[in-house]
C-alpha cells in the first residue's frame, strides 16, 4: 500500500515547498533530498527526469516533474 516517495527539491523553490506541504497534508511519508546540498543527488535527478527543474517526485519509480497535483494524486491514489 505504502509507496516509497522521494522528492528532489531545493529549499528556496516555492513549488517544492507546496509539493512537500501537499504530501504532509495527505499523511504521506517521504524522503526529502535537497539537491543544492547534494551534488550526487542533483545528478541522479537530472538522469531520472532528463531535465533540471525542481521539484521532481519519485513515487515508487514513477517520475513526476513539477508540482503536478493531479498526477501526484493519481500516483498515490489519494
Amino acid at each position, binding site marked *: 500500500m505504502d509507496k516509497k516517495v522521494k522528492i528532489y527539491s531545493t529549499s528556496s523553490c*516555492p513549488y517544492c515547498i507546496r509539493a512537500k506541504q501537499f504530501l504532509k497534508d495527505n499523511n504521506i511519508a517521504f524522503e526529502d533530498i535537497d539537491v543544492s546540498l547534494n551534488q550526487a543527488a542533483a545528478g541522479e535527478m537530472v538522469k531520472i527526469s532528463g531535465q533540471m*527543474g525542481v521539484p521532481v517526485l519519485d513515487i515508487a519509480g514513477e517520475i513526476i516533474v513539477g508540482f503536478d497535483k493531479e498526477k501526484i494524486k493519481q500516483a498515490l491514489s489519494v
Partner: protein
Amino acid sequence: MYDLVIIGAGPAGITASVYAARKSMNLLVISKDVGGQAAWSGDIENYTGYQFISGPDLAAKFEEHMRKFDIKLKENEEVAGLNKQENIVYIKTNKGSYETKTAIIASGKRSKELGVAGEKEFKNRGLTYCATCDGPLFTGKTVAVIGGGNSCLDAALQLMRIARQVYIINITSSLGGDAVMRQRVQESKIVTVFNNTQVASVLGDRMVTGVKIKMEGREEMLSVQGVFVEIGLIPNSEFASNVEKNQFGEIKVNSSNETNIPGIFAAGDVTDVPEKQIIIAAGEGSKAALSAFRYLVQHKF
C-alpha cells in the same frame, strides 16, 4: 452567484481576499498558483515590518493570513475569458465557469521569453526563468544571466554565492535596477558584465552547453551550463479582452482601482499603476476590495 471573484493570488489578490473576507463578502479566488511573483523572489528587504525576508517566506505568510479566513480558493486554475453582460460578470476558466457581481483582476505578470533558437528546447535543461527555484542546481557551474534590470540583478546576487562564474548579458549600454543591488553585483569577482550584447541562440546537446552572443557586429560563444532569462515581464491580461489596457497590455485603472467596465476592478502588477512592488500590489489589492464592496452597497445587489 458570488459577490466577488478575485483572479490571482499574489500579494494583490491575497490582500484583496483578506479585506473582502473581513467585509463578509461571498467570494472566490481563482489562481494558477499562490504567492505569485513574490514566491519567486529572492531576498526582500523593502516590505515594511520585515527588514529581511525571503520571497517564499513572505508568500507563505500571505497565504497563512488568507487561510485564517474561510476563503474558497481554486488553485491550478487559469482564467480564459471574462466579460460582463447586464449586471453579471461571467468568468471562464480551463476548468469551469463562474458568475459574480464584481471581479478583481490581480493576475500579475509573467516572465518574458527571449524568442531565440534553443530557448524552448533547453527550457528546464539548463535554461530557466526562476533563479530562486533552480539556482541551487548550478552550484559550482558557469552560468549566464540574461537581462539588465532588478530581476537580473536579483538572479545574479543569488547565483554569485554558489556559481563558479556568472556572466550578465545586457542588451543596453549599462545595468539598470537598484543602485544597492547593482553595486553588490559589480563588486563580485566572479561576475562579468557584457553590455550592448544580445543573445543570438542557446546551444546544447541534451543539456545547455553555451550561448551564442552578438556584440558590436560580431558573434561569440560563451561556454555555460546554465542560462537564466530575466528580461522583464508581461501582464497576464489577455483573457480580459474587453477591459481597457495601455500599450504594454497593462489594465488601466483609476485611483479607486476601477477599470472601464463598472464592477470590474484590477490591482497589482497587471495594472498600469506605476512601480511594481510587493507592498504596492498589496495596498492596491486592499483598495480594490474596498471599492468592490462600496460598489455592491451602492448598487444594492
